């Protein structure tokens, strides 16, 4: 957490208390990272945009629930990641396949597809974890300050990784 009044944490805390003057600033600060996160998860512009929009609704609707003692970005990203996962599930339910055009096939495309599958699998495993674990791992991913620090954070991160690994093993049978 930072004490900088212009930081997302401070702005989100003000919005949680009902200060509407910071709404636009919060929206602008959150939109970019949310869209990037969704784009990196979904690898499809339309799906990423849909998920990011839905995530923005969820994040700012729940702004009044925001806990001031916790960092805002990982909290927002955890909600966005959940939306991306929902979008992925919807996509798989629709049985949408993004076939690679034959003229584009090659090692780079194969690598991209492989990465996409790994990300999808990791995201599913992440979705099985508790909110605290998700937030801890996302804070690590985004290199953000977490709600705890020092030995507690290290321990929490270690446990979250262990649980993620166990879930991944349970779901896919591999580490």
């Amino acid at each position, binding site marked *: 957490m930072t004490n900088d009044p212009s930081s997302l944490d401070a702005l989100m805390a003000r919005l949680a208390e*009902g200060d509407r003057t910071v*709404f*636009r600033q919060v929206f602008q600060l959150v939109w970019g990272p949310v869209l990037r996160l969704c784009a990196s998860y979904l690898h499809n512009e339309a799906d990423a945009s849909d998920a990011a929009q839905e995530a923005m609704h969820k994040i700012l*609707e729940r702004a009044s629930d925001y806990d001031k003692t916790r960092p805002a970005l990982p909290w927002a990203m955890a909600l966005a990641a959940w939306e991306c996962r929902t979008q992925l599930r919807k996509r798989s339910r629709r049985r949408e396949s993004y076939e690679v055009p034959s003229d584009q096939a090659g090692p780079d495309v194969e690598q991209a597809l492989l990465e996409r599958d790994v990300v999808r699998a990791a995201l599913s495993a992440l979705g099985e974890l508790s909110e605290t674990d998700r937030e801890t791992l996302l804070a690590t991913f985004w290199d953000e300050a977490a709600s705890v620090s020092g030995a507690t954070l290290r321990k929490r991160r270690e446990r979250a990784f262990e649980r993620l690994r166990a879930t991944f093993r349970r779901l896919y049978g591999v580490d």
Partner: protein
Amino acid sequence: MGSTDSASLGLASPSLNAAELARLERSVRKGYELRRVRYALWGMAPVVVILVVALSVGQRAGSTLAFGLATLAVGAVLLWYGRDPQKAVLPGVAAGLVPLVLSLCANHVHMCGPEGCSTLCMPACAVGGVVAGLAVARVGNRRKAGVWFWLSASSLAILTGAMGCACIGYSGVMGLGLGFGAGVVPGLLRRLRSREKALDA
């Protein structure tokens, strides 16, 4: 800041142009407000219980209902608005419970003299008002609260108390108001004095 600003800030993405982004912001804002309204209504649920109890125990259902609905409306608006007024809801309603409970109890106690019998409603409201005023002043001073806190907490305390103090008509509410004033004014003056001192320093 309109859609142009969003574009100039580089927020628009290839899949979402500046106008769409502005539309998204408006829709997200609407969701935020609706959620706050829902919270405010849920937050006032305990007051509904208080109102039902007051209606079942009290004797003037009409005025109790009117003051109860006013308490619900004011409380919901304050909770929806947020900031200082939102923080005043709990202390305001809690302080108002003192005259409410006292007046509801006093309604059932009679004092009889040579000129006939009368209830203890008026003194109960005045004493309850003083206690409520002191309580609001104590919380306000402890929190170094601003003017909106004092106004919001005071209005809610008086409205809550008035649900019971209307037992002998509006003179009961007047008694509550005067008692409340007597309780809250010294604390308010102390707060203003300490604020002036802080400004001088």
